[in-house]
């Protein structure tokens, strides 16, 4: 669980920006929790407040989260560049109004990317995300930008 304005310097500090992602991932959120990377389990969900991912355009931010196995990021809203980067590299990021007030640490959450429905198992609350724009859906359905690039190489168009 995180609050508002979680910036990309916090997610991955400048000193790790030019190291390979597998190595950098061990330092995710180091400034706030040295053990964060060790404690993450596959399909864990990050839930945060407003303006998640503000600051620098570094792709390393969503890339390290994805590398650690984070299933998705749910936030009240996202900073623009982080949101684009997350979708581009295949890390699901969903803006869900009201999410931060409804979730507690260690809650189980079910997320459907297709319908945009988020269910909190403990309370039975059901929330809806704002739908993805069409171009983002294309990227998500293709499984990330690399697949779109492969299509481009093969067909000359996306």
């Amino acid at each position, binding site marked *: 669980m995180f609050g508002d*304005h979680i*910036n990309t*310097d*916090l997610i991955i*500090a*400048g*000193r*790790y*920006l*030019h*190291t390979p992602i597998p190595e950098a991932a061990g330092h995710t959120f*180091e*400034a*706030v929790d040295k053990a964060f990377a060790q404690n993450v389990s596959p399909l864990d969900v990050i839930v945060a407040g*407003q*303006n998640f991912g*503000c*600051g*620098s*355009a*570094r*792709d390393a931010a969503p*890339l390290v989260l994805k590398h650690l196995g984070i299933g998705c990021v749910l936030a009240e*809203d996202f*900073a*623009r*560049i982080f949101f*684009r*980067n997350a979708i*581009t*590299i295949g890390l699901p990021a969903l803006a869900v109004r009201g999410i931060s007030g409804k979730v507690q640490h260690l809650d189980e959450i079910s997320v459907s990317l297709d319908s945009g429905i988020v269910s909190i198992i403990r309370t039975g609350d059901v929330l809806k995300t704002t739908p993805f*724009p*069409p*171009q*983002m859906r294309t990227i998500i359905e293709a499984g990330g*930008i*690399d697949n*779109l*690039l*492969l299509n*481009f*190489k093969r067909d000359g168009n*996306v």
Partner: protein
Amino acid sequence: MWESSGLRQTMAEKIFSSKVGRKVSAGEYITAPVDLVMSHEAFSTAASRLIAVGIDRIWDSDKVVIILDHLVPPANERMATIHDQIRKMVKQFGIRQFFDAYEGICHQVMVENGFVRPGNLIVGSDSHTCTYGALGCAASGIGGVEMSYVLATGELWFRVPSTIKIILTGELPPRVYAKDLSLSIAMQLGLQFAQYRSIEYVGESASKLSISSRMVLSNMSVEFGAKFGFFIADDKTVTYLKSIGVDDAKGFGPDEEATYEGEHRICADTLEPLVAFPHSVDNVHPVHEALGIPIHQALIGSCTNGRIEDLRAAAEILKGRKVASSVRLLIYPASRAVLRQAMEEGLIQSLLEAGATLCPPSCGPCFGGHGGVLAPGENCIASTNRNFQGRMGSPEANVYLASPATVAASAWRGVIGDPREVA
């Protein structure tokens, strides 16, 4: 003054409409061709991805500009290898517009070399690409991975942003600058008032600002969540562009009666020097609330405030004075050209005699990934754009953001100081 589209459009709407070839409005999702792509060390990520997928051609290598600035000079073998790889990839992809290390910070080099034109659409692998809005250019940051897509196809998807107008009025008092204006906006409106929006800085005071001062405000726009941070391209813009050899530039601005999502008035008349306290750009206080905070490092530079205007402001304060013995004052001119001009004007002499240290035209300590970083418990006052926890080194260090004049006054005093109190 500039052409109307006849469609009552904002600058963002006009530019996207022109790229797409039909009228588009705020809120629409489009795919648009870009005029230019800028990248720095992130190019190694973007280009490697293309190579891995088997794409060996960039859509138009003449529309790509690569500039090395973040890892300058390379501090270890890994950084040196990244630079070496980029030099090879630039040749491999036929990119002729390549500025090797020491030319300067990417955004400064882009503007100085005439790559930024009013009414154009530019994407860059750096969040402060929005700096080019100062010349009426739609410019925004993207990640290195998305950059690989643009390099292959020459286009990208966008949502046409709605626009917020910021009306600047009044006159900046002595020793108060564009950076203070920007910090005032942060203080009054916060970190996300312009999320996904385009900002247009307008008003009489906006037109009085120099190009360099406009760049400060456009640069800081991303700190408020903005996609674009425009100034109208007026006579000043055209004159500047002519002075750097761009003869065919035309003025560019919004249509009268364009639709705005909102507007704010910011008055400069009563502005004081401001300081953003750790660890947030909107944690802004007037300098008199910061007086006496001890300083270990002071930094004048960055894409925000590393230009000749900034060095002049600093030298005016420090000429004939000495930097406090407890302070390390680092000067990072934003480009080789800025450094050369500063030398001609005697500014470097004055700063060095005061005890400053001259550093290579580059990003330096700003992003914390290179030299000049901080130890736990140290305070740095900097003319940079971000002060998040850990931004400049230790997470237990503190970064205060301010104008170059305030930084210079603080370097002299050894504690945060008010530049207006320096004779």
